[in-house]
Structures are given as C-alpha cells and as structure tokens.
C-alpha cells in the first residue's frame, strides 16, 4: 500500500453568481504518492474548479482537504501561500510567465521565495530544470520573446523548481499546436516515470489513457 499524499473529503462548492450554482457535489478522492491522475470531463463539468480547490488557491468551499497529513482547509492566507510555494507546482492552460523576466529568472523566482538555497545553487537548479525541458539555450531570453510551446516548457520547469510534492496542471496543452502538445505530454510522461505525483486536467482521451488513473467529472460529481 502506497502512502497517501492527498485526500479530499466531501468537497462541495457553490457559485452564487449569477444564480446559486452547485458546481462540485460531494467530491471525495485520495491520491497516493507517485500516482499520475487524469481528470477528464465535459467543458463546464467543474474540472478546473476542483483543481483550484486542491491547489489551495480557492478556499471558498465545504469539506476538507489534506495534503501530506496537513489539513489545508482553514489555514491562513499566509500559511497557504507558504504551503503552495513548497509543495505544489502548478501549470496553467496559458503559458503564464512574468514578461519582464528572463526564462531563467522566471524559473528561479519560486525558489528564491522559498529561500532554502543561496542564489548560485538556485540558478544551477533552475538551469538544470530548463535543460530537462530542453530550454537551456533560451535561459537568458526575456520570456515574452519565446513561442507558446517554449513558454509552456519554461512554466513546467518553474513548477518543478522547488521539488513539489504534487504537480497540478490545468489543460497544459489547451493552447498549443499538435507538435508542442506532443512535446508537453512527453515531458509529463518523463515526470511520471521519475516518480512525481501528478494531477492533470485534460481533454485528450489518448493521453488520459496513459495515466495511472482517470477521474471523470460529470456535472460536478465523480463518475
């Protein structure tokens, strides 16, 4: 029996605008270390909403979430920020980088925030992550000058920099062409093989099939 790393109990989420809307209904799930979980479902079924809850960014819900035996539910804004910084790597659908910074600096920022290593070590680690994404040649380019696929690879490197317990991705290929999509999926498979815990929201059935477990959401319920 592998160690449980994330547990959600009876999550319920409502939106009040424009009318009260029950998005997530009694969602309970458990994810073990080194598991690769895909969340699929129709558009509007609540996949992103669930991922934001699990990522600790959305705190407005009912139910409880535990990560690493820590009860996340109810922690202060500051404690949650700290927790995210250390334990969660998030990859967005859009390649969200800070445009004024170089690719390398973007990758370094979460580690600098964590402040566990000196700047030289962080730089070396960030360089190593970029190399892993085959982006080392673009390290010193301003991130705004990179193509979409390149930016998403930098964003993945950034999600990995603090060696997070869980990597979460919300349709990371949603905005990429097919060749870049293939490359990003390749990267996630490599990460899986390396033993990372990954939760990924995707539309891609083929890719989902390769993952260890598929969670399908239908109208806010796990099918």
């Amino acid at each position, binding site marked *: 029996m592998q160690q449980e790393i994330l547990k959600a109990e009876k999550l319920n989420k409502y939106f009040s605008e424009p009318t009260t809307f029950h998005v997530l209904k009694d969602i309970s799930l458990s994810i073990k270390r080194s598991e690769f979980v895909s969340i699929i479902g129709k558009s509007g079924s609540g996949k992103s909403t669930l991922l934001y809850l699990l990522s600790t*960014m959305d705190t407005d819900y009912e139910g409880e979430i535990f990560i690493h035996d820590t009860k996340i539910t109810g922690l202060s804004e500051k404690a949650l920020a700290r927790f995210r*910084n*250390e334990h969660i790597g998030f990859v967005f659908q*859009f390649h969200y980088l*800070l*445009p004024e910074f170089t690719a390398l600096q973007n990758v370094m*920022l979460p580690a600098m*925030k*964590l402040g566990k290593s000196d700047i030289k070590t962080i730089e070396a680690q960030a360089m190593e992550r970029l190399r892993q994404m085959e982006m080392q040649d673009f390290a010193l380019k301003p991130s705004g000058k990179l193509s979409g696929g390149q930016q998403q690879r930098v964003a993945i490197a950034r999600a990995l920099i603090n060696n997070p317990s869980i990597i979460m991705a919300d349709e990371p290929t949603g905005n990429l062409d097919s060749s870049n999509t293939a490359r990003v999926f390749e990267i996630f498979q490599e990460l899986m093989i390396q033993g990372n815990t990954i939760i990924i929201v995707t539309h891609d059935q083929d890719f989902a099939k390769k993952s260890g477990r598929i969670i399908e959401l239908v109208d806010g319920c796990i099918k």
Partner: protein
Amino acid sequence: MLLVNLKISRVQLLARKRQTIIAMLGVTFGIAMFILMISFMKGVNQFLHEVMLSSTPDIHIYNDFKADQSSSITARFYQQDSHKLVIVHHLRPKQINLGLKNAPGIIADLKKDPNITIISPLVSAPLFFDYGSVQVGASVDGVNILEENRLFHLKDKMKSGQLENLLNTQNGIILGDMLASKLNVVPGDLVTLNAPSGTQGRFRVIGTFKFGIGAIDAAKCYVNLSSLQQLLSKNRDYITDIRIKLADNSQAKVLAPILERKYGYKSDDWETTNASMIASDTIRDVLTFVVSFTLLMVAGFGIYNIMNMVITNKMKDIAILKAQGFSGKDIVQIFLSQSLTIGVFGTTAGLILGYLLSYLVSRVPFPGGDIFSLKYFPVLFEPKYYFFGALFGMLTTLLAGVTPAIKASKIDPVAILRGNQ
C-alpha cells in the same frame, strides 16, 4: 523584506522607465517647489523681521499723555458734587509733562531684572531744521549713543562718519541719509535746530545712517541726550521714552503689561507694535504650506493613479505570483516598494532641484535695493526645510502607494487565472 520581492519590484519599475520617471518628476517638482517656497518665504519673513526689529525695541515705555486727563479742567469738578453733570467737549490737557516722572528710578529698577539686557533712555522731540528760508521737520532723538547702538546695531547702519564721534562732540548730530540729502549737508557741516520754545541750537553733522526704511531715513536724527535736554530747556532727568531689549524677546508680550502696571506708563511690546507685520508673516507661512501641500497632493495622486494602473495591468502577474506561493504580504511589499522607490528618488531629486532653484533666486538682484538695504532676494538655507521636504515626500508616496498595494494583495488569483480560460 524579502530580497526576491525587491528584485521583482525593481525589474518591474525598470521595465516601465518612462512611467516611473514621470511619477518621480511629480514628486520632484512638488518637493522642489516646497523647498523654494519655504526658503524664499522664510527669507522674506526674516528680512522683514530684521528690518522691523532694527527699529523696534522689545518693549517701549512712554508717556501716553492722550489718556491722562488728570491735569485738565475736569479735575476741578470731578467728584466734587455727584448731583452735578459736567460735559466737557474737545478735552485737551492743560499743562502736560511729556517726560516720565522718576525716570532714573524706573531705569534703576529695570536694571535689577536679569531678563533685561539693554535699557536705552530717550528724549524724543519733533523739531525743525532751518534750511535756507524754509523749515524741515524731523524727529530728533536724544540718546546715549552707545546704548542705542547696542539696541539697534547702529554701527552697521552708518553710511558715513563714526558713531563714537558723537560722544566727543558736545553738539554733534547723526542724520538719516535721506534727511541729510534733503538738507544738503555732509559730515562736518553745521545745521540749526529750532525748539518750540524758540531756542535754537547749532549742531555739527558727525555722520549719516541708513536703516533701509524710508520713513526713518528721511525723518530721524540722533543727538546726545544732554544736548537735547539743554535745547528743550529741561533738566538732566528728563526722559520721554525708555526702550528695552530682552534676553528672550518672546517674553515681551508678558512683561509689557506688568511694567505698564508697575510704573503707570504705557508699555508696548514689539509684537503689538508690529501686529500687522506678524499677521503677514503668518499669511506667508500658510500660503507656503497650502501651495506646497497642493503640489504634493497632485504628486501623490499622480503616484496613486500610476500605481493603480500598474496593478490593473499586472493582475495576471500578481495571480501567477500568488499561485507560486507569494503571499498577500509579499505583494504589498513588491508594490509598496515601487511607490517608495519613486518617492526616494523623486524626493532626492526634488531636494537637489529645490536647493538649486533657491540658490538661483538668492543670486537675483533685488529691484529697488536703494530703499531697502537688500542686494539680492532674501533666501534662507535651513537644513530643517530639507528634512521636512524629505519627510513630506516620503509620507506622500507612502500614503499614495498603500491603497493600490493593498488592493493588489487582495486580488483573488483564481478569478484572474480562470478569467482567461
């Protein structure tokens, strides 16, 4: 304060240099104007104060005979018969003594007060000079010239001649420079003074002085106390005014009424004598602060606007930072430090610009410098103005930066990140 926050702050500031510089210039201009205004206004105040104090003693004791009706005709009826009503029109004193009774006693008494540093007794009389066939009116002050010098720094105001020579010359006279040119005399010449009683005195011009106040320079002259007492046929105790200087002139207002009650003669303090001037001091001070405050407010709103705009443009970046574990406090630090950086550089530049402008103004020749003893526009260079300038600059930027920074820290990353999906 985390170094990484400072780094983010700096990179973002440098990424929009033009906006940053415009925001800084707002502060720079506000602070520079504050420095210029306060240095200049305070310079004007100080100059006017000096002029005022150069001709006003801290306390002036004199015989205000207008209030004294004891020697008038009413005394004969006053309190004689309470049933009689006596109405007197156009009341005039019958025979008055302009001098202070027991002046030597008052002076001896004043000398005992340690707060009083200078006592200068005076005989003042409006007399006429002979100038050919016409007579020129003047206010003649009989003084102990050394005491008078201590009181008003006459030595610095001498235009020609030596002050001390008055002591060696029995009938010497020192004239205001405009009066001297009206009488067409230079040091060494003789002038004739006419007393109301008809006696005449010839005086030798020792020198001329210039206060820089037309009303004084055209109408005043100094002679020895004893010469004037003689000319007026009075004895050696005859004194009309006593002027006092205090160790601390802010005490004048308190002491004057005490002296008035004690000696029974009118005592004016310099603040009452120059009330209108002190009021205009206050008006200039208020004006300085209102204008500076307005400029700083405008600069503050400039920063507030720019920071709000920056934060609206940077919502996505803030959401990313938060998603990666930057807390609300980090966001406040990032954006507040941007405002403060604008403040520090803007203020520093403002202080320098303010100094340069003040310096330039202080080198501009003052027009009409003949009447005033003023060569250039008066400007004060006081470190404390620069200190206040720095303080105001930093406070303004802090206040202007706080609200946008807090607004930024409250941004919900989920709402932003979801918005694009």
